[in-house]
């Protein structure tokens, strides 16, 4: 680990100011991603700004009937919060599908949003990586890319975003509240993470001197159905190969009235296709419609040398998750059999 200066922010303004003064500083929340990356010298901040004293640990209802969750609330506390468990069970389920109990106890909402890719070349400072060292090259494209992107990748980068929580937030349609030197900004989750394009070093649209204050969930969706289905190499404590988050309502005539579906593990950000979702509206919640939707969602998919299996796996994961949601039998995160 490179040596660094440690400071503790006593206010949000002070954290923002400190980030402005030290452009290569990093905020420290739970530390489960940042400390790991610092041990590998992948992250080499000269200053760490510890934000654990900031008043960002509240969960409260918003005026429009949604929920606001502070940036420093732990992943565990989000998942077991009664309002989350009751009104946004998709979010609770996705969080509980991620990492381990120990990690979720330390990990925070903002840290989870900001976590970096698990691409093995990104982690290995002895290899090139355009995300870690811009311009150095991408060994994953011709190399070990079984876990890499099938959608939205660029010539420069084929990394995926590893979060489970963010896939649920994408389906639910959350908003990220951030503060910078010029005040507050609300960023829809869909615009928060980026595609790699020609700047894969940038994971998000957050500016370097902005602090995430929290997330806002839209008003409760009555009678919704959901499922979070995560496919991975071992049953628990492993990142997704693909995952699907489904947020659905079905009206009295058995027609789909809301369809918000996000895919994880397949791209540089949680993947949604709102045009394909719109085509589901008003149609019966049937397997054939789900299959058509899944094909559209995966229509632009391009396989790398080792991951062509992911395209069909993702398609089938979406169909299965939609069926689970429609039949009100969401995937259990402890009994891992897929029904």
């Amino acid at each position, binding site marked *: 680990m490179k040596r*660094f*200066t*440690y400071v503790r922010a006593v206010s949000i303004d002070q954290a923002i100011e400190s980030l402005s003064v030290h452009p290569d500083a990093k905020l*420290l929340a739970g530390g489960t991603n940042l400390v790991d990356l610092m041990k590998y010298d992948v992250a080499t901040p000269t200053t760490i700004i510890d934000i*654990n004293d900031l008043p960002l640990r509240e969960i409260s209802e918003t005026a429009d009937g949604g929920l606001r969750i502070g940036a420093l609330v732990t992943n565990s506390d989000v998942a077991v919060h009664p309002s989350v468990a009751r009104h946004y069970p998709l979010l609770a389920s996705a969080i509980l599908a991620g990492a*381990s109990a*120990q*990690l979720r106890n330390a990990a925070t909402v903002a840290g989870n949003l900001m976590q970096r890719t698990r691409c093995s070349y990104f982690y290995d400072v002895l290899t090139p990586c355009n995300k870690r060292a811009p311009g150095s090259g991408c060994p994953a494209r011709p190399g070990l890319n079984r876990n890499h992107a099938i959608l939205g990748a660029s010539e420069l980068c084929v990394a995926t975003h590893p979060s489970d929580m963010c896939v649920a937030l994408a389906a639910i349609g959350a908003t990220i509240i951030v503060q910078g030197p010029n005040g507050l900004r609300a960023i829809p989750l869909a615009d928060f993470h980026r595609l790699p394009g020609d700047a894969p070093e940038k994971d998000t649209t957050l500016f370097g001197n902005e602090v995430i204050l929290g997330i806002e969930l839209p008003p409760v969706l009555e009678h919704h159905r959901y499922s979070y289905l995560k496919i991975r190499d071992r049953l628990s404590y492993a990142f997704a190969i693909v995952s699907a988050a489904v947020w659905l309502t079905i009206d009295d005539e058995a027609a789909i009235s809301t369809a918000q579906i996000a895919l994880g593990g397949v791209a540089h950000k949680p993947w949604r296709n709102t045009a394909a979702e719109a085509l589901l509206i008003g149609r019966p919640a049937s397997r054939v419609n789900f299959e058509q939707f899944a094909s559209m969602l995966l229509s632009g998919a391009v396989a790398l040398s080792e991951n062509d299996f992911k395209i069909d796996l993702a398609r089938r994961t979406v169909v299965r998750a939609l069926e689970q949601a429609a039949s009100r039998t969401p995937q259990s995160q402890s009994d*891992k059999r897929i029904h």
Partner: protein
Amino acid sequence: MAAAPNTAHRVAYTINGVIRVATVEPGVTLLDLLREEFDLTGTKKGCDHGQCGACTVLMNGHRINSCLVLAVSRSGSVVTTIEGIGTSDGLHPLQEAFVKHDALQCGYCTPGQICSAIGLISEGTAKTRDEIREGMSGNLCRCGAYTGIVDAIEEVMAAVSDAESLP
């Protein structure tokens, strides 16, 4: 908030009921503080990257991976390590159950397993064997004692009607 680069910081922790202080560089983890400064070597270093659970301790009542906590960040916390759980003549119920169910072979993962299991039981969300397995997935056992570990936890969980009664 100004600080000179690489300044050592004073930290204080209540560890197993005893207040301990030390001066650490900011890059020192809670795991290294416990093992190297305080000579509490019961907490093990397996991977040092949050991937194995050998370093699990209870911090303010919650199980966490001490290898990913910067000691300077959580100064003031109350920490329980395996040294604070049971004594040689009065084993903790989980320790007894681990012995009874052969829930270990080499024992390297065991301190983390015990701390994690105490955290699991006090969280109170796991009821079934599947849920115990899932709740304990953050603790790898290279010797593969998983079946015994689940047996031991299941037995203690059934005996503890009130999670509060576990230390």
